[in-house]
Every structure is written in C-alpha cells, then in structure tokens.
C-alpha cells in the first residue's frame, strides 16, 4: 500500500487531511515517503528468524549502566558547555555574524 501524508490546509476553521484522502480542493501537498509496497515481516522465512534470534542474543549481551549515572553525565556535559552555546546565552549583537547590516542616516 502506498501511504501519502498531507499538510493541513488552514481556512476558517480547520480541515484535517486524513492520511490518503484529502477533502479540500485547494492545492495540497503530497510527500511521497514510500514508493514501493512495504512487505510485512514474513515470519515464515527460516533464515530471517535465525538471524533475528542471533541479533537479539547480541543485543542482550550489551553492557549497560544505570539511567541515573547516564543522566548525570548528560547533565554535566550540558552545564560544562552552556557558556559556549550561542543559542542558549545569546551573543552581544556586535559579534553576532548574522546581525542585520545596519546603516543609519543622520537627519
């Protein structure tokens, strides 16, 4: 099955475009995500099942750490680099390379 997704079209009120069906006649946007038929994972294939079992065994043997430890390390990284983050703290407009080029006319 081919699945299309649409963007909503805003008129007075809202018209939601359902997946695969658009009721509004104005221009609608189609984003073709899948062009082929997506096959369901057929479990009748022996070798695929064997590969799946091997993969699951591999994933189960991964070394894991506690979420609390991982979270504290993520937080530490954030706070360490927060000063350098221009989007977070903002830069003075003078050094912002994307400032609008100013030109003032004196009256």
């Amino acid at each position, binding site marked *: 099955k081919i699945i299309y*997704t649409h*963007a909503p079209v805003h008129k007075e009120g809202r018209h939601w475009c359902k997946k695969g069906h658009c009721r509004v006649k104005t221009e609608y946007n189609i984003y073709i995500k899948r*062009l082929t038929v997506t096959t369901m994972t057929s479990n009748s294939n022996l070798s695929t099942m064997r590969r799946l079992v091997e993969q699951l065994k*591999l994933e189960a043997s991964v070394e*894991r750490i506690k*979420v609390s430890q*991982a979270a504290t390390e993520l937080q530490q990284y954030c706070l360490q680099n927060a000063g*350098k*983050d221009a989007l977070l703290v903002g830069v003075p407009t003078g050094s912002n*390379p994307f400032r609008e080029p100013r030109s003032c006319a004196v009256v």
Partner: protein
Amino acid sequence: MCIILCIIFCIILCIIMCIIVITKMCIIMCIVLCIILSMATQELQINESLAHLKTESESLKTKLEEERAKLHDVELHQVAEKVEGLGQFVMKTRRTLKGHGNKVLCMDWCKDKRRIVSSSQDGKVIVWDAFTTNKEHAVTMPCTWVMACAYAPSGCAVACGGLDNKCSVYPLSLDKNENLAAKKKSVAMHTNYLSACSFTNSDMQILTSSGDGTCALWDVESGQLLQSFHGHAADVLCLDLAPSETGNTFVSGGCDKKANVWDMRSGQCIQSFETHESDINSVRYYPSGDAFASGSDDATCRLYDLRADREVAIYSKESIIFGVSSVDFSLSGRLLFGGYNDYTINVWDVLKGTRVSILFGHENRVSTLRVSPDGTAFCTGSWDHTLRVSSSFSFSLFSVISLSPEVLLTHCVFFFFFFLQIWA
C-alpha cells in the same frame, strides 16, 4: 519419531504390494508416494523449528526488556530538578534565503559556518552564502524530489540524491561560470530512493540510506561499495554519524519505527530501539556522542541513551499533534530544536523535558532543520520555498554600544549641538 515410523510403514506396504502385483504402475506409485511423504516431513520439521525459534525470540525479547528495566532507577527530569530553568526564549529570523522554485527538502551547513547547501523538489541544488544571502552555485539534478544533500568536510564538494536512486557528488570550483553538472560523479546505487546521505570525517567516503531498507558506505573515488547495513524491515529515512573523530558508529531511523545503531567497520547492528509509535523522520546525535534524539510522525521527540541502552526522555505535548520532520541539538546539548509539520519550530529543554519556545514564520511545513557548526544560528528549510536562518535575540546594553563608531560619533555630535542650543 512417529513420522519416521509412518514413512517406514508406507515403504513396507509398497514393497508388499510390489511383491504381490509386480507392475510398473505399482512401482511408480510407490516412488511418488515416498517422495510426497518425505516432502511432507520436511515441511513439518521446518514448521517445528520455526515455532521453536519464534518462542526463543519472544523469550529473548522479554529478557532484553527486563534487563533494560532493571537499570531504570530514575528519570532524566528528576535528575535535572536542581538545574535552574531556562525561562522564556526569543529567537529572531536573521536571514531569509529565497530562490528555490519549489519545496525545500534538505539542507546542510559547511564547516566554515557560513555556506549552506539546500535541495528542493524541482531538482535544484543551491549553495548559498548565509551572511550575504547570495547564491554561489546552482545545479539542476536530472531527477525531482532531491531528498538528501550534504556538504563535504573540506567544503569542496556537495553530494545529493533523491528519486534517481543514486548519490551524485559535484566538486565545487571557484569559477562561477563553470558547468557543475559536467563534473558530476555518480557514487551510490540503490534499488529505491535515496533518503539521506552524509560524508564521513573525510571527503573520500559517503554514507547513504535508502528506501530499500539498507544503508551503505561508499568510496567516492571508485564508487565502490565498502559496507552495507541490513536490518531495517522498511524504508530507512534518516541517519547521523557519531560526532567524535575516532567514532565509527552511526544511527539510522526508519519506517519500521526502529532506530538502529550500527558499527561501520563490521556492518553489525549494535543496538536497536523501538519505542516510537510511527515512522522515525529524523535522528541526531547528542554533542557528546553518548545519546541521540529522534523525531517521528507520532508528534514526539525522544532521547535515547546509548550506554543505558534505553529511552530516557520524551518531548511531547498534548496540543502538538503534527509529526516532527527534523531535530537538532544546540552546541551544548541543552536545547533540542524540532521542526514540525504544523509550520512551527518547538524548542525543548533537553534536561527538564519542557518546551521553552515556539517559533513561527514559515508558511508551510518545516522539512529540515540544522544548527550551524559553531552553534551561533540554525537554519530551517520549508515547503514554502524558503530557508530561514535564525538565532537568539538578546537585547542588552552591548547592542547600543556596538553601533558602528562613525554613526555613534555623529549621534553624539548631534546631541551636543542640540543641548548647546537649548542652553543658549
């Protein structure tokens, strides 16, 4: 087993029949019967082992979930409670890049933090200078829906691809009049559309993902396939390389709701995460490389930690019902930008899980979002044919002092004479 006994019984019966009535027909019938019986038993054997494997895989899956749940002792936002909140943010659009004739599908920054390459539905790939908004190069691809484009780390080439199932590399030259299409090099060959491409740390290798469910690593010079990655059950929509110099892993997200982490050298899938409820449109590594975020059609962004091997945060709101098309982190990893299909950009606080800002400005869905390499600004491309470069808006005393000196001088002189007149 009983099946084998049945076969033996049938064979004995056939031999007895042959002895009693020795005719050709009888012998032929016996042989045919034996063949049918053996095939039936083979089928039965396969079904038995399939059932056995299925039960084994189910038990392994539950065991995996248990192992992961054991280490889930606390949530990320609980750990981050002591961190001070960010307050309200204001972002301002600094540049609007107009020039595409149709929907902008993908964009990438150059390492020099000022050039941008973007691709659109009509097949055009344009290289912009974000500071001046000038177009530096423009290439017309022979196909439409150019869904992937990438800038080489050296800044000397761009790679793009889409419905033509190929990834083409165009070397950029300083001569503006040169016909870039003549120097095109076709690198990747897939059996379905190209959804994402990215150069590795050098100009020499490209990683691509495709609608045929595979990712592949190619050598640019020879066009040879170095490694292919199989494991997704449906189209792969996005990929991102680990940020470290020595890292050789990458993460890919697909329509099968799974995000897989791969080892580039061996081609093995190291970890797999399946908690999204719909297609994963975009994945991006956390700046430290220990986690990654994903955005999906189920209107949520999720953060997965690689060392804890599980999802650690969900960024969603009941009022947001449109899917996320692209995500990116700010430089420190504190902010997560998400481009949504309801034409807005939501900015999330990664540690606390709350939304800090919402940005409007695009007139159609936001299809791509990237933060610049030095973190000063981010660029968004949308189906309204434009790209917008935005950065945070900070009003401070510095902005007054930073006016150009001659303007400041004339203003001072003006006010001086003004006050002189009032006094006199």
